[in-house]
């Protein structure tokens, strides 16, 4: 009797402690919890609901079924233009930004370089420039008549360009601009490169392999986690780009830079078609989700995580 009594006493005490900890956990998490439920996932569901209606700011919303989606996919001229422009930009900016960032990181990782911290700081500065200021600056540099770029091209005797002011050069110009601000992936690559095992590199040296062999067979596999992360984040950021099309091109010329996030903004906040714009947002979300899954499927497996520190 006595023994069981003690055991009974022991158990509730443990669970009281656990219960206190659970309560504390929820109390400390309460702000985040409210945010996640009401400002993130709740809104996510709300967005899906709106996308099946003809919601505008004033007036009541009517349920219209799949009408918005059908109209978007079948009739909306701007939708396909926009998807094409966005995919082009996202792909271009990921390739340009990641290659630039990786190249700089590899240069800075060289043992013979002094003043690494200095160069790293300088190469990061463009990423610090606020988006609106950076857009205005590049717009001015892209100016076909009085801009820096055409002045430099003329000086070198090269043909000039209309940059963001012509249909076929607008997206490449914005891609160029995105590569200017490659600080974040560069820093991440640098830390990835610092972890590449020197013994493995020496092993290639002993086997008589050159710099290229080292890079392809040792460096790339060993930095694959950061390569994967940077690429994924770059694609998402590329798809979500907004400020450049709003400030610099207003989607033009001839819809060449009508990126989806700008189209969503225009349909919702300028044309007051919230239901329609929500359907658009959902289609983009689904496309992006499929892209992410494909990337995970094909490249996720190839990512090398050293030991247990994943």
């Amino acid at each position, binding site marked *: 009797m006595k023994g069981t009594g003690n055991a009974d006493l022991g158990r509730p005490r443990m669970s009281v402690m656990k219960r206190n900890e659970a309560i504390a956990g929820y109390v400390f998490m309460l702000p*985040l919890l409210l945010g*996640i439920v009401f*400002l993130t996932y709740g809104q996510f569901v709300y967005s899906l609901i709106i996308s099946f209606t003809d919601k505008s700011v004033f007036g009541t919303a009517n349920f219209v079924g799949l009408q918005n989606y059908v109209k978007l996919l079948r009739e909306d001229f701007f939708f396909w233009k926009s998807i094409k422009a966005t995919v082009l930009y996202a792909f271009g900016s990921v390739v340009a930004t990641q290659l630039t960032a990786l190249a700089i990181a590899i240069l800075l990782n060289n043992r013979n370089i002094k003043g690494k911290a200095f160069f790293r700081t300088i190469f990061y500065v*463009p990423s610090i420039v606020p988006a609106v*200021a950076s857009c205005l600056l590049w717009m001015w540099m892209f100016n076909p008549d009085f801009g820096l770029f055409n002045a430099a091209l003329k000086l070198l005797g090269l043909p000039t360009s209309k940059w963001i002011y012509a249909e076929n050069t607008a997206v490449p110009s914005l891609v160029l601009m995105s590569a200017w601000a490659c600080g974040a992936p560069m820093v991440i690559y640098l830390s990835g490169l610092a972890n590449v095992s020197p013994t493995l590199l020496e092993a290639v040296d002993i086997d008589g392999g050159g710099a290229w062999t080292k890079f392809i067979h040792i460096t790339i596999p060993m930095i694959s986690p950061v390569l994967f992360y940077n690429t994924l984040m770059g694609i998402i950021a590329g798809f979500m780009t907004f400020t450049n099309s709003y400030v610099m091109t207003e989607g033009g010329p001839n819809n060449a830079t009508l990126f989806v996030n700008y189209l969503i903004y225009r349909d919702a906040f300028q044309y007051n078609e919230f239901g329609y714009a929500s359907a658009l947002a959902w289609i*983009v979300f689904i496309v992006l989700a499929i892209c992410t899954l494909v990337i995970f499927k094909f490249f996720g497996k190839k990512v090398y995580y050293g030991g247990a520190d994943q």
Partner: protein
Amino acid sequence: MAQTSDVKAMKLNKKKLRFSTVILYIILIAGTLVCLVPLYWMLRSSLMSNAEIFVFPPKFFPSTWRWSNYVKTFQNFEALKYFTNTMKILVPCVIGTVLTSSMAGYALGRLQFPGKKLWFALTIGAMILPGHVVLIPLYLTYSAIGATNTYTPFYLAAWCGGGASNVFLMRQFMRTLPKDYDESAMIDGANRLQIFLRILVPLCAPIMITVAIFSFMFYWNDFQGPLIYLRSDNKFTLALGILSLRGAYASKWNYIMAASLVMVVPAVVLFAIGQRYFIEGIVLTGVKG
């Protein structure tokens, strides 16, 4: 014989090494120019007269450095008003973000409770969830409660965790601190609030500075949020104010560049001061993420 050729090879190697190092430096200096010349172009344009700006071929140096452009820009642009508005959003939001994200980081990183895995998974999900999907419903929600054209939408977001990536950073950092601290404090009779405030907050100072810098940069740069929520000019932030300046003085690129530089300088200064925390934070999200 063999020795001399070895020495020769070594010398050759050294020369080759020097040569490649020189090339490396040339590339790095070229890169430095690519990074900085655009910013110089901003400065140079901001100091020119409007006639000088529209000259072809463009001049690399202004004939006179017209610092008076800045006085005129401040007069036309009401920089002080937009700066004050930006600060009215920024200061409470940075405080809210640091506070609520560290609280959530404590719960997710150090406490055991049912449902923790689910909430953490949802936080990670929110990190990759593209923001454009929730933009419209959030606007409609705030519009329904009459919170548009106020700073409420910014305050609410900041005081409700302040962004999933900040929570994630806090949680990762909190996990690395030894559990013994909490346990010995518990034995001494401290409650969890005391543990959080007296033990963890001081230890988390580095990551809190990182999160503070990140959220400062976010609200300083934020464009789409203010664009959607704010309607009247006397509520506008710097980012929106510069665009209204452009609307009013479409071809006065000297004033537009001056106003842009006003926005660039504080960001770069903060980066220069807090660089260590900033870069560590980027690396932490990227490598551990």
